[in-house]
């Protein structure tokens, strides 16, 4: 720690001549550099913590992996044989060192159950999870913004109060329903009663058709949430001077709302979408169980509840964390492009 004295540093003030040293003005490029360095370092630190914490947390999962893998009819000798083969007889620090040194090389170890690289098992499932999650995010952004804008414009200045009230009540109720409840309800209505959609994933069905209900389950709550926020933002933006001026100029509707209003809404919507995507990854794991969707959910549940498959759990949690961190970074970069003020730091 260092200290400065009044003698060594004089703050400029009225009547005080400014320093002759030129002011180093922060440029946009500099802000970007600082932002990216900060975020990349943060990403690395977060990943390191993720690796370490995941290793420690899986030790707390109840149940002995060797017993789970050896099976119910195994003798104690067989269980110990499995324990030795899996390296679970080693002290924890040795296991940690083996794990970390493997992860640095991209090796999360072999699955206890499947006896093949844990990351391979996870990466087999990831595309399925990303498919429904990203599709849901795209849907909820597009439909949520469109719906929120439409309602916001329609109810501008306290017009159509019944519509505003109905919108708030309906979207409030829908967005408060847990995803797995919605999913179950969709199965009952669309698959069991009406029989218009597959109830779950099966090779007998087209994968696109089988994805409809999972995506709908994941997106509808988010659509309502985004729509409610966008509707509020729309109301605020519509009252701003520049919008009033634009309306006074009788600009075409499309220009008015798409060119002048939408960019301002996107900042909020995109920020929200990053948070929603992370939450959706969690919801997707549960939704997958309802629809037998062959994504990460089933892999993680089996790895935790049945097999105590530590390498698969670690790899899955790492991948989910990585997806979340990278998506957040991408969204922050997009936000930085749209609105450089979000990059942080001071610029003259």
């Amino acid at each position: 720690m260092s200290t400065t004295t009044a003698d060594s540093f004089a703050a400029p003030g009225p009547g005080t001549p400014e320093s002759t040293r030129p002011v180093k003005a922060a440029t946009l490029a500099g802000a970007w550099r600082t932002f990216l360095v900060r975020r990349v370092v943060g990403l690395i630190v977060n990943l390191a913590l993720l690796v370490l914490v995941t290793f420690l947390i899986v030790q707390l999962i109840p149940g002995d992996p060797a017993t789970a893998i050896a099976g119910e009819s195994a003798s104690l000798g067989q269980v110990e044989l499995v324990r030795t083969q899996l390296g679970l007889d080693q002290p924890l620090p040795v296991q940690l060192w083996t794990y970390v040194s493997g992860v640095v090389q991209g090796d999360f170890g072999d699955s206890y159950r499947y006896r093949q690289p844990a990351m391979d098992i996870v990466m087999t499932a990831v595309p399925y999870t990303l498919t429904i999650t990203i599709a849901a995010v795209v849907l909820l952004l597009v439909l949520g913004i469109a719906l929120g804008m439409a309602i916001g414009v329609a109810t501008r200045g306290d017009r159509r109060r019944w519509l505003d009230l109905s919108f708030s009540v309906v979207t409030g109720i829908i967005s408060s329903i847990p995803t797995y409840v919605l999913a179950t309800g969709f199965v009952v209505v669309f698959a069991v009663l009406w029989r218009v959609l597959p109830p779950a994933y099966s090779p007998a069905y087209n994968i696109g058709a089988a994805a409809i209900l999972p995506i709908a389950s994941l997106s509808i709550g988010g659509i309502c949430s985004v729509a409610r926020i966008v509707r509020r933002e729309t109301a605020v933006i519509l009252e701003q001077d520049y919008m009033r001026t634009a309306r006074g100029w009788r600009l075409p509707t499309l220009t008015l709302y798409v060119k002048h209003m939408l960019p301002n809404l996107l900042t909020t919507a995109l920020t929200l979408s990053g948070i929603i995507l992370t939450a959706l990854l969690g919801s997707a794991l549960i939704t997958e169980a309802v629809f037998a969707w062959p994504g990460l959910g089933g892999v993680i549940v089996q790895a935790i509840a049945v097999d105590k498959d530590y390498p698969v759990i670690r790899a899955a949690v790492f991948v989910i964390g990585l997806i979340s961190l990278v998506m957040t970074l991408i969204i922050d970069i997009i936000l930085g492009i749209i609105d450089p003020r979000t990059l942080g730091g001071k610029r003259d």
Partner: protein
Amino acid sequence: MIAGVALAAAVGLALSACSTGAPEAASGTTDTINAELWYAPATFDPAKASASSDVTVARLGFDTLLRQGETEGYVGGLATDWSSTSASDYTFTIRNDATCSDGTAITPTVVANSFSYLVGLDDSGAQTWKNQAFGSGTPTFTPDDAAGTLSISLSAPYSQLFGGLTRPGSGIICPAGIADPEGLAAGTVAGAWSGPYTLTKSEAGKSVQYALRDDYKVWPDWKNVEGTPAKTINLTVQADSNTSANLLESGGVDLARFYDANAQRFEGDGYSTVTFASSAYNLVFNQAPGAGSVFEGNKDLRAAVAQAIDREGFNSAGLDGLGVEQNTVSAASYRCALDDSSLVQKYDPAAAAKVLNGKTIRLLMMSNWDPAGDFLAESLRAAGATVTVSAPDPADWTKQMRTQPETWDMAIAAENAESGLIHTSIARYLGPTYAQGGTNVASSDNPEGMADYEAGMNATDPDEQCANFEAAQKTILERVDMTPLITDTHRYVARKGFASYVFSGYWDISAMRIVS
């Protein structure tokens, strides 16, 4: 992929509101069977199979010497004839028309090499199969290709060898598989298969696909199996019973396994159902010397607990009433299983209360058996006992029951009831404990029963085997070392146009058929 699915889903979602009729199901796929597994197979090496899904798919890819008879006994698999001169000496005649998937003839030497591979593996799953097939001793295999026979001699008598050689883990692995163990486990060795199907696709943790071999002609001589085997079998992982029922109803799968009331959605309407024993639910009394169990040396207390429990109530609470009352250590479908209810304590809560009042009992069970455990605990509390319930994770439950007898007095145990080998169930209640290298989870000291058990293991004549094994079961029941509760009966339901079969209590996946 993501864009495509998203687009298809979005369009489909929009259209679904105005579409009518059933979703696009498996119509027209008359050469394909879509079915499910609860968990994905972890290995395709039958000798290393340990999880239920490994065992299930092993039956598709690897033939065994013997198969379960349709109603009793055995039928030939790769063997056409089998005999024994003692509980240690067996001879098999190997059929001369069986081939591996690469065309290699399956000779007695091929069979012997496969068994030697199994016996030599340093693997937990393999040790289980080895013990089930050849007992605890060391087997010696003597093939005679000219005569077409294989002789097996055992260092320790083991009368259950025929039954053990029906088990999928003893499936014959062809030379190409033995030459490449890693490829065998991954299912990638094209010539490894001796059974009717070969693996064509596997997504780890998700699904597997099998294709029928064009050159496979050695189906067992089943008399009542109708229909044609599927050219393609898709098995996807799906563990939820409600989802299975919905998929079966909509045609997403052609067969599904049920353990609960969802099975009752398929009574009639062209659905066919077969049933088989999945698990045997028993109450085990801990009698480990010095472990502090209230049941050690207290037969009256053990009997009182058995009297306090209404088994039908347990069935309703834990198994939706779909199980059947069990009268011995395992399911009634097991060969040599006693089926005499007079040996089981009758439900008599009044008599039970006289003994149980004021006693404290520590009940151990698995974490997902809450309704059944609650029923048992409340039954004992109603009889005046104080019951503390411990419900750890399944792996911890297993470990605790086997290695920590000081932590529990009685335990609900659900033993796999699909092996058909009664001696493994008997050995859970007599003989050496786990700490002693055995499987006696009750730590009971039953020399009389042990003598009967060993006599059964040494007998050559099947009737004599059964007489001895039944006598051993009788001693266990009379001593109340355990009390049988319910056999968890599972159902395989096939939709119209498909069928599956249970042979002597064993559901055989290779006998799934398309019947129209």
